[in-house]
């Protein structure tokens, strides 16, 4: 009775793995990912936990120096230049922070495009205006007056 229900494996039977279906799935996945992979400003990687504000802007980001404001730091070109405590500058190290930001901006201007006044501002939506205004003030002092405020387009 048992022999009727148990499949007996023949000796020497090769079991081949069917991977054609997997190849089909991979092709479709690859096509989709290649399509959604954006090559413009592809090096815009967000460091840390940054929640960008939502906006309906339609202008594409231009390649420029990036300033990122997170909860704990201000980063210029992905390098931390000033420390923040819950999005705010410390009153004790304010001068040092401004000086550090100034140095980083001037260094960038020296090494890269000397005439560019564009700056990409990537800031968390919870950042108080005071912090942003201080960063803007230092940037304006170094000649960066044309700002691009990065926003996320809601779907």
């Amino acid at each position: 009775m048992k022999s009727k229900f148990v499949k007996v494996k023949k000796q020497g039977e090769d079991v081949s793995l069917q991977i054609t279906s997997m190849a089909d799935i991979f092709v479709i996945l690859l096509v989709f990912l290649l399509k959604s992979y954006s090559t413009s400003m592809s090096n815009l990687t967000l460091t840390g936990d940054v929640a960008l504000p939502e906006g309906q802007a339609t202008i594409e980001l231009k390649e420029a120096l990036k300033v990122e404001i997170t909860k704990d730091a201000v980063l210029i070109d992905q390098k931390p230049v000033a420390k923040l405590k819950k999005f705010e500058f410390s009153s004790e190290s304010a001068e040092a922070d401004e000086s550090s930001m100034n140095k980083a901006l001037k260094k960038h201007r020296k090494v890269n495009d000397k005439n560019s006044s564009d700056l990409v501002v990537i800031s968390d939506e919870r950042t108080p205006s005071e912090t942003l205004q201080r960063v803007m003030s230092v940037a304006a002092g170094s000649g960066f007056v044309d700002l691009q405020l990065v926003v996320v387009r809601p779907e």
Partner: protein
Amino acid sequence: MATIQSDSGNSQEVDLNIVPVIDCFTVLITYLLVAASFLSLSALEVETASSSDLAPMTTAEPPASLVIDLLSDKTIKIQSLGGPLKGFQPVVIPKNGKDWDWGTFNDRLQKIQKRWPSITDVTVNAEKKVIYKDLVRSVEGAKAKFKKVYLAENHEIEVR
């Protein structure tokens, strides 16, 4: 199963080995999944305005512009700066419940733009505790109606 025909006319059946192709695909897909961003980002273009830029000029009459003040208590003030705007009255938009009244803000801007089409510049100024999200919202509203939007560096601005 593929067939290869040799010069002598004998055909041979060859199995296509797709395992290396699967390996390549696996690596490519893994890389793209890690690197791809599913956020669509865009930018609001603004310029920096210092308080000296906004001070009334003493010689020639400067062109009329608007100043939008965002206060900590979620009140929005719209004032004029520069040249005479006949009939313009400063606008105060109180908060709507616990939040900003963006609807009224956008409506007022539209009315101002229609009545005084010579205004092309707007400066957005915010008190220290106003968060970036609200600043962006106001800039967006201003950008939709006016050509140039400036962000003030500090809040101490004297407006006539």
